[in-house]
């Protein structure tokens, strides 16, 4: 994902705020892949993730003037998506997190390694879905999205020691599931 592309985020934000609505497309193209991946891991459903991220972009556009640090637009967007995901999750129990049930249909051309990889992914996804939303969020932000603890604090509004504890607990729970499955 090119997050440092030209023009810089602050410049794009200024363009949009000056009335160039179409410039918001740059923001979408720049960040949608990462946000969709994050939301998919949080919600366990590509459709729900697409809804959450689309809603988040619309909210971000409408509140763009309140983005106090346009240079940290990425963190700000993750914060919005995080909150959207939490809202989605509140409306259903964790146990209901629907991993997109149907695994990818095996094409005859698929090789054995790809199939094995799909199996492994399914195991990991189920292990992730078994975590509480807080731990799942912490693990995905840290290890899938590659955020620093400082960035995670800005995204979640939580203190760094709290986030570290959640990441640790998430690792422990995931490792147990993975080792049980091995």
């Amino acid at each position, binding site marked *: 994902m090119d997050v440092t592309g030209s023009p810089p985020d602050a410049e794009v934000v200024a363009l949009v705020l000056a009335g160039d609505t179409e410039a918001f497309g740059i923001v979408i193209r720049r960040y*949608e892949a990462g946000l969709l991946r994050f939301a998919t891991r949080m919600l366990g459903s590509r459709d729900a993730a697409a809804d959450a991220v*689309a809603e988040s972009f619309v909210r971000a556009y409408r509140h763009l003037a309140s983005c106090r640090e346009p240079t940290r637009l990425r963190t700000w967007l993750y914060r919005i998506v995080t909150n959207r995901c939490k809202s989605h999750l509140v409306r259903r129990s964790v146990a209901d997190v629907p991993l997109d049930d149907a695994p990818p249909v095996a094409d005859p051309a698929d090789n054995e390694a790809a199939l094995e990889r799909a199996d492994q992914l399914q195991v990991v*996804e189920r292990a992730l879905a078994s975590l509480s939303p807080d731990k799942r969020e912490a693990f995905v932000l840290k290890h899938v999205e590659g955020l620093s603890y400082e960035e995670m604090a800005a995204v979640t509004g939580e203190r760094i020691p709290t986030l570290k504890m959640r990441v640790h607990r998430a690792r422990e729970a995931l490792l147990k599931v993975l*080792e049980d499955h091995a």
Partner: protein
Amino acid sequence: MNQIDSRIHQVLDGELGSDAVPAELGRAVGRLRAAATLLAAAPPGPAVSLESRVMAEIRRPSLSRARRLMRWLVTPRAIIFRVRPAWSLAVAAVAAALTLFTAGDGAPELAEHEGIAQFVGRFPEAQSVHVVGTFNDWRPGSIALEDQDHDGVWRATVVLPAGTYEYMFVVDGERWVPDHLAERLVADDFGRENSIVIVRPARR
């Protein structure tokens, strides 16, 4: 939950090199890293692009309700239902009384489900004040407050469908300020607080 060797966390947090831990711990680190790598790969299935969907929503013209609110904006109303501090209560009471006495039969009728909201804020240095909220899709500029007597107290009276709304003031087009005198404040998605106004139907 089983605790794992703290060195696994140290390696994963970049505080310890992978080669500084025994092979058994290294395998655990490897498992977790492999899991993260799998999760970081694009989810299976066709790539999704939200650009056209989001941009269509953004370009959509404002709702007719917003236009109707604009029409009503300049029309004085009589009902004030939010508590204000002493310095503005007196002003608001006079304004409300004047409106009550001058409201004639020609005053527009409210629908049963509609109520009246008055927004008042004190911004002595402001050049402009707008109110944005869930009633106007948070669009800055659509509902302006006025300070007709230049005393720094800005106000707007609008008709809204009965309901509960979140809102903020936008001062000079750039400073978003909650109304701390609102009935309630709630945390929003952006780590700040929004004010809450409850509009009750004028006719029951």
